[in-house]
């Protein structure tokens, strides 16, 4: 057994987007040896770097949203664990991970309160016209035109939560305090949950005044908030999305919003970020945010703790936290 002085810090391969150095990299580097192709000098392609180190890599830290494809995985024959940096894992080829028996962990519950806070912020903003009201004041229209047009009350609104996971539960807890009436759709009914469950999103929409998208993006959930669902929600319906852009048929959403067929929308995510459909920019009843539901320092602190704990657990053969079931 190696002594403490001789033991090398364990190797962790890092896969990150260019120009994005995650905030706690230097602290991780005190405990692990981080191998990062984007730091290589002279510069080396990811493909070549991965191949060169493949014999010694058992764990990959994937700094979101860098995709992990089957091809990339094929360069790492001894990979056992992918530590994700986000709640979403739709950028990882899970089928291949299943086939190769590679474990994947995600951000788990670390992000949930912040995402829930933003979902509520978006809903209040849309119904009460917060951003629009601020624009009115800034443009000097309060003095010139008088009273700002009325918004709509939150209390008593029926809110349908699409996916009652960790984020969905936190959203429900918050909205209940505003007097909203909660119901949900998820893969399976949850017997311990007091809210009405709808088997599909269409039925949920029929019985809701607002839909909140906060579930994982998978093949089943892609475009689940479809034209039919949004039409069922109706002209006074509000759509909030803090999940993934592709949960919603974005083209249809834009068409309905532009045509006045929905009361409004609050969106943190889009199908082709950072591209946002320009037709939305001239709408007063839409609130847009640049995928920043988790962009608070507290979130990153929680994430750092979780990632560090999982890496240490892996290298000491202890149980991992927030393992993704797939």
């Amino acid at each position, binding site marked *: 057994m190696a002594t403490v002085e001789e033991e090398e810090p364990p190797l962790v391969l890092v896969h990150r987007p260019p120009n994005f150095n995650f905030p706690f990299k230097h602290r991780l580097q005190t405990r692990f040896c981080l191998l990062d192709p984007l730091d290589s000098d002279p510069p080396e392609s990811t493909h070549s770097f991965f191949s060169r180190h493949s014999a010694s890599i058992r764990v990959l830290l994937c700094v979101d949203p860098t995709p992990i494809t089957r091809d990339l995985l094929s360069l790492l024959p001894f990979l056992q664990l992918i530590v994700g940096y986000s709640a979403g894992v739709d950028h990882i080829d899970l089928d291949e991970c299943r086939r190769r028996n590679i474990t994947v962990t995600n951000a788990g519950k670390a992000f949930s309160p912040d995402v829930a806070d933003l979902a509520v912020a978006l809903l209040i903003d849309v119904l009460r016209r917060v951003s629009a009201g601020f624009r009115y004041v*800034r443009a000097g229209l309060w003095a010139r035109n008088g009273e700002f047009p009325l918004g709509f009350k939150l209390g008593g609104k029926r809110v349908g939560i699409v996916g009652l996971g960790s984020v969905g539960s936190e959203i429900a807890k918050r909205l209940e305090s505003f007097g909203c009436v909660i119901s949900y759709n998820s893969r399976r009914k949850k017997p311990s949950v007091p809210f009405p469950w709808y088997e599909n999103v269409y039925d949920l929409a029929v019985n809701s005044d607002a839909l909140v998208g906060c579930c994982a993006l998978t093949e089943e959930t892609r475009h689940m908030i479809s034209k039919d669902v949004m039409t069922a929600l109706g002209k006074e319906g509000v759509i909030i999305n803090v999940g993934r852009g592709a949960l919603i048929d974005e083209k249809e959403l834009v068409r309905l919003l532009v045509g006045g067929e929905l009361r409004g929308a609050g969106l943190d995510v889009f199908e082709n970020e950072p591209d946002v459909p320009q037709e939305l920019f001239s709408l007063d009843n839409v609130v847009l945010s640049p995928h920043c539901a988790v*962009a608070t320092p507290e979130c990153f602190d929680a994430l750092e703790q979780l990632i560090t704990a999982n890496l240490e657990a892996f290298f000491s053969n202890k149980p991992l936290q927030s393992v993704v079931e797939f």
Partner: protein
Amino acid sequence: MESIGVLMACPMNPYLEQELDKRFTLHRFWKVPEKSTFLSTHSNSIRAVVGNAFAGADAQLIEALPKLEIVASFSVGLDKIDLAKCKEKGIRVTNTPDVLTEDVADLAIGLILAVLRNLCECDRYVRSGKWKKGSYMLTTKFTGKRVGIIGLGRIGMAIAKRAEAFSCPISYHSRTEKPETKYKYYPSVVELAANCDILVIACSLTEETRHIVNRKVIDALGAEGVLINIGRGPHVDEPELVSALVERRIGGAGLDVFEHEPEVPEELFGLDNVVLLPHVGSGTVETRKDMADLVLGNLEAHFLKKPLLTPVI
């Protein structure tokens, strides 16, 4: 009742105006070119005044209307009504409590979230196309932050209930301690400000509470603290607040009310840590209708000699 003269102080709600027009002889004060002439001409027929947060019934108006029996306010705040004068002359006063409590509390939380999470700035960022060039900066978490409430009345309690759902520890200052709540009481606003991250003004405006948030309180709240005002503009020493915000001595502010509405200090427009709203606390379709019905209900009850629905005096 069509012969009863009702003076509406300012435009406030088309439905209310319509209904008053139907049921009474409605005088729209804002349309009157010569106010003193008007008042002397109609002094014998005006028996009710309908006011709101912007205009009510001051001593001068009350003195000019010897037949005035009731002032029905389209608001819960009574700071625009000379209550002492009304009491002296036996004039009834009603307001619109309870129906607007939830909306105002909802907006307080909406302002907190918008300020802490820079929501309006984020929206501008996306619309300007800047997202294509890079991510927006980190903002601040709301969940778990310490919320301090000035005034634990109906609205203050409703704000506390909502903030609790975000796991926020709640503390408060009010005229008297409320031991039945489990929230932490501070005997002064300065102490409250020093011990919270977000300070919310939710008390009524009286002589005692004018400028209750002054330089000392602003300093105690500090560079990481955020001020939220859904009460009345004069609760805050506005020039002090403006300089504190411009000089970054305070973390941010969400303001729905101002000292001289509809004027809003333009120095605030260039800041990225403020959200400024045009007094929309109770501004929803649903609640304004409820408020209007309450005003109408109170006036009807008075003139039919029935008990008032929501009397203050």
